[in-house]
């Protein structure tokens, strides 16, 4: 093979006609003393691989079960970061269902009265119980994008860590509210099957190894309109997670849907409500 063939191949791989929004970005695992510096670093790498917008959530230091003071601090850091780069980043508010009144207040502060457009729920408490319902209901009223971390770990989940099965139980109580299944359960062959019949659940491809077949199975079982690209940076590289879509044996139209179309359709109501151009 002539090496001159490489440039068009890589350009095709990073086809600029693809619009890419990254659903799943964090301020941890990346150098920088301030949130602004860290998001700047993420954007430096995002530029190199053609990613236009980042959804950012959780602060510079995480806790599995954050107190209200802690999640407010983390959200403050995200607010600072996205204020510096409002044309490149969206913010999601981190909440803890163990602290419902404080979480509802944070939802008002950051989404209803602030610039954030989504909600992040992590591993403090499994999402199948009714305690979380007020948060989902209010987030839905605000048209916020709702993201719930999930895993099916062979090595056992954390005590408060949801599985895709837990998320299905939640989604059945809110059948008209779209909810994103974070990591697609990590063990994606199980996660995809678990959420398949619950049509208001969407698959986040982020944060697992770039094992060949994940995207093909997700598209086959869910349709590209229920699949979303995300990286889980800075702990993950953009490269390994982009490869799940760039390297998948699916059509170019399906790739574009996963890179941008699905997330944009979920975000359009709140972007319009807030008058955000994107």
């Amino acid at each position, binding site marked *: *093979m002539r*090496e*001159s*063939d*490489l*440039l068009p*191949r*890589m*350009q095709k*791989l*990073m086809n*600029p006609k693809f*619009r890419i929004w990254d659903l799943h970005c964090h301020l941890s*695992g*990346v150098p920088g003393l301030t949130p602004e510096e860290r998001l700047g*670093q*993420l954007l*430096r*790498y995002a*530029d*190199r*691989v*053609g990613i*236009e917008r980042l959804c950012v959530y959780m602060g510079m230091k995480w806790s599995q079960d954050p107190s209200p003071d802690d999640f407010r601090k983390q959200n403050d850091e995200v607010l600072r970061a996205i204020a510096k780069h409002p*044309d*490149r980043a969206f913010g999601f508010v981190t909440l803890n269902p163990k602290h419902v009144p404080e979480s509802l207040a944070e939802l008002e502060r950051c989404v209803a009265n602030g610039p954030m457009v989504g909600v992040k729920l992590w591993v403090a408490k499994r999402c199948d119980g009714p305690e979380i319902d007020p948060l989902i209901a209010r987030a839905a009223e605000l048209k916020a994008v709702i993201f719930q971390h999930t*895993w099916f*770990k*062979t*090595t056992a989940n954390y005590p408060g860590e949801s599985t895709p099965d837990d998320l299905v139980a939640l989604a059945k109580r809110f059948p008209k509210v779209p909810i994103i299944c974070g990591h697609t359960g*990590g*063990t*994606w*062959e199980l996660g995809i099957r678990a959420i398949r019949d619950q049509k208001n659940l969407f698959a986040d491809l982020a944060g*697992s*190894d*770039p*094992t*060949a*077949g994940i995207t093909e199975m997700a598209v086959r079982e869910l349709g590209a309109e229920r699949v979303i690209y995300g990286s889980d*940076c*800075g*702990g*993950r*590289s*953009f*490269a*390994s997670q*982009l*490869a*799940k879509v*760039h*390297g*998948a*044996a699916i059509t170019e139209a399906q790739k574009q849907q996963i890179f941008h179309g699905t997330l944009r359709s979920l975000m359009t109501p709140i972007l319009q409500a807030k008058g955000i*151009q994107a």
Partner: protein
Amino acid sequence: MNRRLFLQSTAAAAATPLMALEQAAERLDVNFATGPWPFRDLPKLDGDSLKQRGITQAITGSLEALLTRDIAAVNARLATACTESGGVLLPAGALHPLLPAWREDLRRCRDEHAMKVIRLHPNYHGYTLAEPIFAELLDAITDAGLAVQIVVQMEDQRTQHPLVQAAPVDLKPLHDLLKVRPKARVMVLNANAAMITTALRGCDSLWLDGAMIEGVGGLENTLKAWPAEKLCFGTHAPFFYPESSLLKLVESELSGTLLTALTVDNARAFLG
């Protein structure tokens, strides 16, 4: 920022790595495999598929070697597959030191199949690097004039099949083993960033591949603490999408010289 401005502002950032990639005349993947994976139908990648992705040669092991006891047959099939690739696939034979007569397998790898590399899977074959049998194996391979690849893990433990779980290989013994074996040519495949900065710290004679090095700018960050002449391009395909490691070369800010080292020169030095 609107779409047009984004494209204009990122064009330069994207063009630089693409131009650097264009400069190299070849690209050698140190971490490729053939054969079936017991738990998933992997993509059918071969020499032609690699060439389409700009990979001109690949050190290739057999996935059959993980669980098959007739290692001699596995190596013979691997040798045939590599021969049929027209030189794109370079065979890395398997040895299982807990099987009877493993030295005969080593002899066949070298003398009958002309292999230059042995690929080991200690966590699937049931021994540790601290056991005497590993030192014996390492010496035998080195005495035979071959290089050795140690696969530290095949996949994330969290996603393994519950009936076939294999913890990553404990790499800590390598430091002392290599200190007294200056002629051994050893490469660790699929190490992650945590392993590199802990268990492998100070193992400067060792080569690594980047297939499982994660984090934004992962290669660039690894090179802050690891010798540039000891890091190689490896895809872990077809288990991983090969585009992952290709895009890592673009994501990290690497000079043309560094790219050539990572994708060609370092692997050639390992092959001897």
